[in-house]
């Protein structure tokens, strides 16, 4: 975009962008540096030797997997129904979903708590999976419907003429074409469920059921506010997501940009 003819101007812009990026790197450096203060690598040894740590990761992974499966199943079928099948009152149903697009999760606090307790789901992963999935579905359906609208209806009709049922037309014709939007939805849903804080905080009581976003608090309680160990725990919990992002950069950037709406 900028025309940088001379060496000097190129150097200047390079310097400028470096200066601007520095504050973004600073907290990450502070995190690593702080985690190595005091006992040094010993902090990591303490954190990693904690027998509950794999449990936290497992719970976060189970929640993310559960949410992804529910959201994808609901979203792809709904997109197909909205886009390719006769449906009276189509737009009314669509608007019912879209109205939930900007719903802040804290608004659901009281009724969810009452319902979760009454259903006996308190302190189970389901208490987090279902509300998170419910909040993710509207946007995922919006994205997926727009995508499926672009798949020619003739393809579906041709399959029907050849004697395929609606189900087979969906499974064999439409679903295989939706891979790009599935990738975007998976990234979006993964990040928001993996990073979710409020619902795990509210609904998961015992350490055995808690997720990685609750780890800092756990360490504050366990190690009497020893900052170095809390920061070591922060590094350990942040690393997997950073690695996933670096490996799948394009998917993450596109998926999250599409979902910036959240």
């Amino acid at each position, binding site marked *: 975009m900028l025309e940088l003819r001379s060496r000097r101007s190129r150097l200047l812009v390079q310097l400028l962008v470096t200066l601007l990026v520095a504050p973004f790197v600073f907290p990450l450096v502070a995190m690593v540096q702080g985690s190595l203060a005091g006992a040094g690598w010993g902090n990591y040894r303490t954190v990693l030797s904690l027998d509950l740590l794999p449990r936290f990761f497992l719970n976060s992974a189970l929640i993310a997997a559960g949410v992804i499966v529910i959201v994808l199943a609901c979203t792809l079928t709904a997109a197909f129904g909205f886009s390719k099948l006769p449906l009276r009152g189509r737009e009314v149903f669509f608007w019912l979903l*879209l109205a939930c697009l900007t719903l802040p999760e804290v608004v659901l606090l*009281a009724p969810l708590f009452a319902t979760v307790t009454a259903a006996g789901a308190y302190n189970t992963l389901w208490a987090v999976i279902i509300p998170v999935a419910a909040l993710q579905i509207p946007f995922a359906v919006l994205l997926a419907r727009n995508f499926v609208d672009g798949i020619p209806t003739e393809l579906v009709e041709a399959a029907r003429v050849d004697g395929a049922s609606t189900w087979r037309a969906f499974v064999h014709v439409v679903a295989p074409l939706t891979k*790009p939007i599935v990738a975007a939805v998976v990234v979006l849903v993964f990040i928001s469920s993996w990073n979710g804080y409020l619902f795990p905080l509210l609904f998961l009581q015992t350490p055995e059921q808690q997720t990685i976003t609750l780890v800092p608090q756990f360490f504050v309680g366990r190690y009497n506010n020893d900052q170095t160990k809390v920061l070591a725990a922060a590094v350990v919990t942040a690393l997997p997501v950073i690695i996933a992002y670096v490996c799948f950069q394009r998917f993450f950037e596109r998926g999250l940009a599409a979902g910036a709406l959240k």
Partner: protein
Amino acid sequence: MTRAATGGSALAAGAGLPPSGVTVGGAEVGLSAETPAPPRPAGPWYRQMAGLPWILPALVVSVGVLYYCIGYTGFISTLKWDGASPQADRVGAGNYVRMVNDPIFWRALQHTAVFFLVTFAVQVLLGMTFAVILHSQVRLRVLYKVLVFVPVVIAPATTAPVFRQVYAPDGQLNAVLGFLGLPDTNAWLANGTTAMLVVMTVQIWQSTGINFVLYYAAMSQIDTEILEAARLDGASNLRVVGSIIWPGVRGTTLAIAILTAIGSLKTFDIPFLITTGGPSYSTEFLGTQIYRVSVALSQVGYGAALSIVLLVLALLMAVALNLAGKERGASRA
């Protein structure tokens, strides 16, 4: 085009997906400007509703759960209830009257507005700058991009202890200031104004990456021939940014404005974890107030009334988002 389809594709465009189609993972997302007409309902009623079983799972999980919760919240908001005891008094609009007379509620609203204005302005400036520079011939572009985007993928809950440490009186920020010969004994989190600035900087740190990627994608759509023509006419870099690029990404800026407004209303994790809304409510947002009132004070009825207000504000934003999308669609046509 149906109404919802217009709104829908405009939303997708607002989120950085031009309606002409953008590639996601190698294939087209977003779609042709012409939305194909969906199959028209005809025949007996069960034929006309053939799509219903297909959308039912989504409706049950999402609309079912969320609308039930919203209705329940509305009901609770007319009660004086601690959330646990069987005893709940009906107080009608009492909680809402209390809200109007609650100075903390008004302060939370005010904080949300200021928070929105500042984070929006700074993120637009930073996002534009990064996008323009990284579209130019500089080295290590991928590295810069990754570094700015990494904060987007890390949980606020994970980084909160880091920021508490960085902004502590003996933390890294003061160390850097001391190194530069500036006053280095600031208690950033103990003062209301600076605590608010801390919350803002953390939000900016967290979400600039997204806005940068949105601008970056929008700028890829600008016709390079126009840029070259401007150069031939002797336009300076500043002139090109001001007269071609900035108007060219106007739609993205509008989308970012609304997205940031929704984000400001939803603000919870960062103030809750870094300042807990303090000192003395100076970083209180609607989200943190709802949590404090409902959970810490067990005034679930009042919390529900606050929730309903937050809900209405968020809905207004959704409408604004849709109207803005329509305006953009019209101006494009």
